[in-house]
């Protein structure tokens, strides 16, 4: 099987997509469910407080309002707000030159991943990857819990994206997380 080769340099937009994807992965699964559950609890608490306020005249209206606002924020606004903040910080990081984004060549072999760049060369078997993540714009290949390499989809030839998806899904099994594509990651 011919390896899938991708050569690219990370642009500003890629870098923003990279950071957004990292954040979405960090906030996926149990974290997202917990936050939403906390929001639901706050809304329920708010409703109970309003009922007590109306039925018994307890002065809980301010507490109910704060709880309701907190619940709405956690359920509907936390994700977009976090994404906006991450995007802003990533843009600052890139513009200030703190993001090191050299040209890279990545090859996906059937048994390993090859990365070549100015200061880093590696041939990593898929079994040594911590996980991989895919969203609409990028693939993230995690070599550690907080270390990852970004491969923008825009740099891939037509059809290569599907080949890489198949390869990662086959080699990494449940360690390959596709945003919204698999039931257990929704």
């Amino acid at each position, binding site marked *: 099987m011919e390896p899938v080769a991708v050569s690219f340099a990370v642009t500003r937009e890629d870098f923003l997509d990279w950071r957004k994807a990292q954040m979405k992965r960090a906030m996926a699964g149990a974290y997202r469910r917990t936050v939403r559950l906390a929001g639901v609890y706050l809304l329920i608490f708010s409703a109970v407080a309003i009922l007590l306020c109306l039925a018994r005249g307890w002065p809980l209206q301010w507490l109910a309002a704060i709880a309701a606002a907190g619940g709405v924020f956690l359920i509907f606004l936390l994700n977009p707000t976090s994404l906006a903040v991450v995007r802003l910080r990533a843009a600052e990081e890139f513009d200030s030159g703190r993001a*090191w984004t050299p040209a890279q060549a990545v090859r996906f072999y059937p048994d390993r991943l090859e990365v070549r760049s100015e*200061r*880093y*060369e*590696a*041939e*990593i*078997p898929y079994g*040594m990857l*911590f996980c991989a993540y895919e969203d609409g714009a990028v693939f993230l290949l*995690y*070599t*550690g*819990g*907080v*270390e990852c390499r970004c491969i923008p989809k825009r740099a891939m030839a037509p059809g290569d994206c599907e080949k890489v998806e198949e390869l990662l899904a086959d080699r990494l099994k449940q360690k390959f997380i596709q945003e919204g594509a698999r039931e257990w990651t929704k």
Partner: protein
Amino acid sequence: MPEKELMTVSFEQTLSEEEFACAFRALNHCASPWRRRGVRAGLCATAALAVALFLPAYRRQFATAVFPAVLICALLVGASAFFFLQPVWENRKAHELYSSCALMAQPARFTVRADRAEWKNRYESCTEYWTDFLFCAETPTLFVAAGGFQRGVLVIKKSGGGRVPLRSGRAGRRGGNSEPRPARGKETFSAETAGAKGISCPREPEKAPDVERNGRLSLLLSNAFAGRYYVLKRDA
């Protein structure tokens, strides 16, 4: 010895989980004063004391002291938790990071130069420049640099570890050192003193320390990091 050789140190090392945990604690200690367990516990205890000072006034005003008492208890519990449980949390986090990165545990050949470090293991070879890192900390057993582009935490073990000369100076103090360590340090750190101080970092008492290598590494890194170089008298 030629100057070029003096400014290069090559060695092999394999990082264990305990050593990484030790480096991770040192990194947390130096990253910010607010991350230190003593500072956090002290803040909580000070806040508890401040609330306790207002207790009589509160009682006169509201004829009860339940709320401030609960607050004081919560703050004292927080202080105890920070002081006693933070090392446990840090070790747990270090374990997570270490076990997530299989490449970190590989035996690697390191070459440390004045401007950069290069390392190569079975799967990867990498060059990181010191200017890319945020800061570097030296403990009695290792050097740890934080914030690299390829590897967020770069750990360089000291040779030996059974008997390492210490710098004079307070823990956590900033400052580069232009002298090699063996020429300055008189105080020594040994496995016996470590046991007496209750430090649980791994030691290799059977291996004789290469004092010259440790001194050269210390000189190289303190010059490279200058104001971003921290020295810890004992492991965090």
